[in-house]
């Protein structure tokens, strides 16, 4: 009994004293929970309050439409179209009918099989099932029509629209317009792109790039209240989107298209300029590429094909191709010689087929020689020896200075990125870059458009515009300047010609003599471009052929053009303007490895000029 009593007493004592410890433990734990909640709600309350707000308010961008680009007559060159994307909302489709649904979709849409659809569908987690799942972007109109027709059999299937950049003329003017690309991570870090967001499209080349600020619209902002699954419950527009400003180019798209077609599959460039103001009417570089391929994320096989093409279709030969100008330079050499009164129009040189300077023999293209040659004949028949003789009289630095005034060796400042300088060599240039002094032999090469001298087709076209308008340099440009503000297009970083409408320091009679000679090239029976004279008597064309050597050829190994491998053939040039009395167009045509300028380039130039004159003539009537 004592035992029991002891135990009993002891049990109660144990309970009472241990209960006190338990109460203490409970107090400590409840206090620490209270402390924790005080920390969450009072100390960090503001922080969590903000998080709670961010949780449910989502900012959604309203994409602004990009400004449209038109040609000089208002025809649209870059537009916004709607891309149609096929989407499904997984939560609106049950597992039982996904197979049937996928089967129907796969039947209507190309490149999509039902197994892929089912797989995509089943990969959706519970948290993403309400979000539209894109099955295919850019549906064709055919696919769209087929899907629309079976709309009622396809619950949970939606067609989403998305603004897409659309270039109606595709590869015809892709070098001018350029294309868009998604902004990359590195650019997003830069201050210049601070107002951009991820997956914004920016102009990558061409006008799209240079006028990015003008063409780009201001994105709008929409705030939506979302629930935990991201479903939008209500939305309100905070800021509407404003479309980008449109832009008018000086290009005549009909001429551009015609010239592009006239070029065929030949590699080269055509530049047409209005000599009265420097407006570029057409600017072609072949081979070209389809800039519509870039309007959505370009497929890698397309990119590989375009980028890996040995003919470099992405290069804009009109402003980036630096070619020896060949005989098209001769009027400039004549002009500087006349201006400096080293010769007059009647000065005669004898051409025996070559000229020997030191131990080197400089050949004329006509190995039998032209005999006695005056200025007009030297241009008409493109006698090299005449210009070798001028080269011995005129200094290279004088040619360079004069050439610069005509735009050679300088960037014109045309509104396209990536323009190249070409090369108008001088003695100081050679000393600096070749570490050698200038020799008269170098001048000889320059005077027939070979040697160190290179020029872009745009520069040649600009130069012939000066001959066309009888002495004024107009800066070639692509954009109609009315209604543009300075901020629309930042100045190019590199120096370029910054004057416009400047009269060349040249006597009028000298200019007219050269113009007359250029007229004879095309309209005189013995002219090198006679075969390409205009078919109509209404207008007359003046111009100059050029055949620029790619590799030096020996007299012994001289072959016919057709027998030479393509990449060793000469570049063919033809620069021209028309009508002779009141020029409306100046054109430079350059065909890479085209052989003789007179036979390859001149016919193209003639077609382009005739097309343009006919067009403007009929529109005036």
């Amino acid at each position, binding site marked *: 009994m004592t035992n029991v009593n002891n135990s009993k007493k002891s049990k109660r004592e144990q309970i009472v004293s241990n209960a006190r410890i338990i109460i203490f433990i409970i107090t400590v734990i409840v206090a620490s929970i209270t402390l924790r909640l005080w920390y969450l*709600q009072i100390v960090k309350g503001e922080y969590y309050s903000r998080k709670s707000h961010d949780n449910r308010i989502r900012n959604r961008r309203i994409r602004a439409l990009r400004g449209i680009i038109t040609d000089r007559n208002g025809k649209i060159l870059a537009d916004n179209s709607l891309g149609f994307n096929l989407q499904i909302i997984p939560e609106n489709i049950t597992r039982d009918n996904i197979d049937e649904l996928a089967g129907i979709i796969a039947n209507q849409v190309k490149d999509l099989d039902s197994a892929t659809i089912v797989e995509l569908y089943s990969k959706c987690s519970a948290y993403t099932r309400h979000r539209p799942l894109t099955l295919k972007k850019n549906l064709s109109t055919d696919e769209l029509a087929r899907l629309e027709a079976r709309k009622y059999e396809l619950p949970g299937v939606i067609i989403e629209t998305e603004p897409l950049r659309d270039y109606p003329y595709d590869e015809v003017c892709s070098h001018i317009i350029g294309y868009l690309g998604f902004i990359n991570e590195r650019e997003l870090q830069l201050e210049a792109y601070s107002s951009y967001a991820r997956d914004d499209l920016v102009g990558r080349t061409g006008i799209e790039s240079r006028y990015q600020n003008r063409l780009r619209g201001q994105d709008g902002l929409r705030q939506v209240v979302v629930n935990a699954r991201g479903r939008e419950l209500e939305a309100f527009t905070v800021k509407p989107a404003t479309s980008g400003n449109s832009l008018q180019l000086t290009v005549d798209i009909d001429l551009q298209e015609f010239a592009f077609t006239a070029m065929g599959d030949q590699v080269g460039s055509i530049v047409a300029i209005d000599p009265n103001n420097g407006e570029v009417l057409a600017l072609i570089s072949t081979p070209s590429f389809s800039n519509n391929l870039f309007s959505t994320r370009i497929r890698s096989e397309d990119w590989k094909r375009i980028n890996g093409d040995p003919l470099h279709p992405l290069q804009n030969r009109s402003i980036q191709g630096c070619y020896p100008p060949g005989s098209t330079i001769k009027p400039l050499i004549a002009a500087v010689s006349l201006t400096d009164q080293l010769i007059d129009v009647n000065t005669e040189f004898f051409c025996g087929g070559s000229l020997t300077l030191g131990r080197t023999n400089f050949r004329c293209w006509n190995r039998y020689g032209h005999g006695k040659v005056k200025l007009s004949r030297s241009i008409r028949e493109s006698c090299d020896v005449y210009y070798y003789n001028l080269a011995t009289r005129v200094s290279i630095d004088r040619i360079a200075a004069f050439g610069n005034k005509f735009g050679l060796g300088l960037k014109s400042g045309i509104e396209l990125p990536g323009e190249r300088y070409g090369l108008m060599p001088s003695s100081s240039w050679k000393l600096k870059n070749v570490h050698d002094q200038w020799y008269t032999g170098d001048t000889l090469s320059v005077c027939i458009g070979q040697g160190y001298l290179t020029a872009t087709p745009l520069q040649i076209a600009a130069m012939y515009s000066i001959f066309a308008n009888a002495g004024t340099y107009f800066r070639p440009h692509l954009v109609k300047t009315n209604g543009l503000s300075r901020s629309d297009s930042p100045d190019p970083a590199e120096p370029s010609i910054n004057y416009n409408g400047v009269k060349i320091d040249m006597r009028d009679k000298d200019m007219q003599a050269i113009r007359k000679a250029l007229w004879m090239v095309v309209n005189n029976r013995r002219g090198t471009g006679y075969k390409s004279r205009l078919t109509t008597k209404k207008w007359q064309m003046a111009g100059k052929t050029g055949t620029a050597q790619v590799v030096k050829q020996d007299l012994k190994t001289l072959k016919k053009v057709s027998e030479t491998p393509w990449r060793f053939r000469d570049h063919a040039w033809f620069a021209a303007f028309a009508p002779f009395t009141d020029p409306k167009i100046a054109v430079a045509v350059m065909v890479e490895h085209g052989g003789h300028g007179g036979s390859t380039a001149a016919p193209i130039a003639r077609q382009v000029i005739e097309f343009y004159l006919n067009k403007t003539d009929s529109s005036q009537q």
Partner: protein
Amino acid sequence: MKLSQHNRHRPNLINPANEESFTGETRSFLSEPNLERNRLDGFDYLTCILTVILIGFGVITIYSATYNPEAGTWLTGFCRRQLIWVGIASGLGAILFIFHYNIFYQLAYPLYGIGIILLIAVEVAGSTHMGATRWLSLGSINVQPSEFAKITVILALARYLSDRRLPPPYNLKELIPPAIIIALPTILILKQPDLGTAMLIILISGVIIFVAGITRGTLVTIGITAVSTAIIGWQFLHDYQRQRILTFLDPEKDPLGSGYHIAQSKIAIGAGKLFGKGFLKGTQNSLHFLPEQHTDFIFAAYAEQWGFLGVLILLALYFTFLLRAIHIATEARDSFGSYLATGIAAIFFWQVTINIGMVSGLMPVVGIPLPLFSYGGTSMLTSMILISILLNIHYRRKA
């Protein structure tokens, strides 16, 4: 205190048999003529009022947590069902109150046996839901035997300890039989697997054994064993259980996975600040950022709407409830009643601690509801039965 002072002067309450009954020798249910006294001043109004207030808060929070402005009904389905469960549970509690709690002494081992059988039945024929087999289908009713086992373990433990002649404190060797009582259902529950309930049973039993009295050496040994078991036990955990613990340790690592729940719950609580966002204005809750906002995470929904002040009131209610339960344990007429009341206090204490600790990011996410507050019939039924027993122990306490 005032109540017990008052009770001391009650006639008929001091029964000579009472002293004996504390040793567990003379027991028979309905033998105590307490109900014949025709007086209800032995009834614990405080616990009763606390229970009503907590359930009321819970129902209001369930209403706000499941409120759908488009549906337009003022009483949501969850809210109505919870009220029905409260009614059923109170009725059952009232019926149990009539019997002397000795009935649980008599039935402790048989009920424990039934609990074990049910757990085995789950193992054999249970229905699997989300990778765990916890439910037993009996016709149209789904029973969760682990919830039932929780109560039967306390009963068996209380009976065993009160039957024991050996005076406490107990040493390790003397604790082997109660350890077996605890281990049997715990292992079966771990196999389901339901780590949360298994841990809960161990923690509750721990409190009972601690209150019964153990030697200091035993306490240290158990502590060391617990730590080493945790390390070894890690090897046997399911991937999702490990993931839960890892996520708890570093929630930022997986903000949209398992850590998402904790992160969203912390946002809800924190955004309540001092005064709360107001009734039905908790956006974390109404826009469903909170997971399980009417069951396991209901505290976060409450904290978002009522702020730190509301939280203080709620914690004060639970704290008072727990102190009262411990007090009842110390005043019970026999050791069985003491151990049982301790166990009941422990159930409430651990559930509240684990639940609030979990939603406020102090503990890993385990599926344990907030008693009296969370939506759920089983939880409500269990809580009300336990409170009924608690009232019973108090009503038939010693002088």
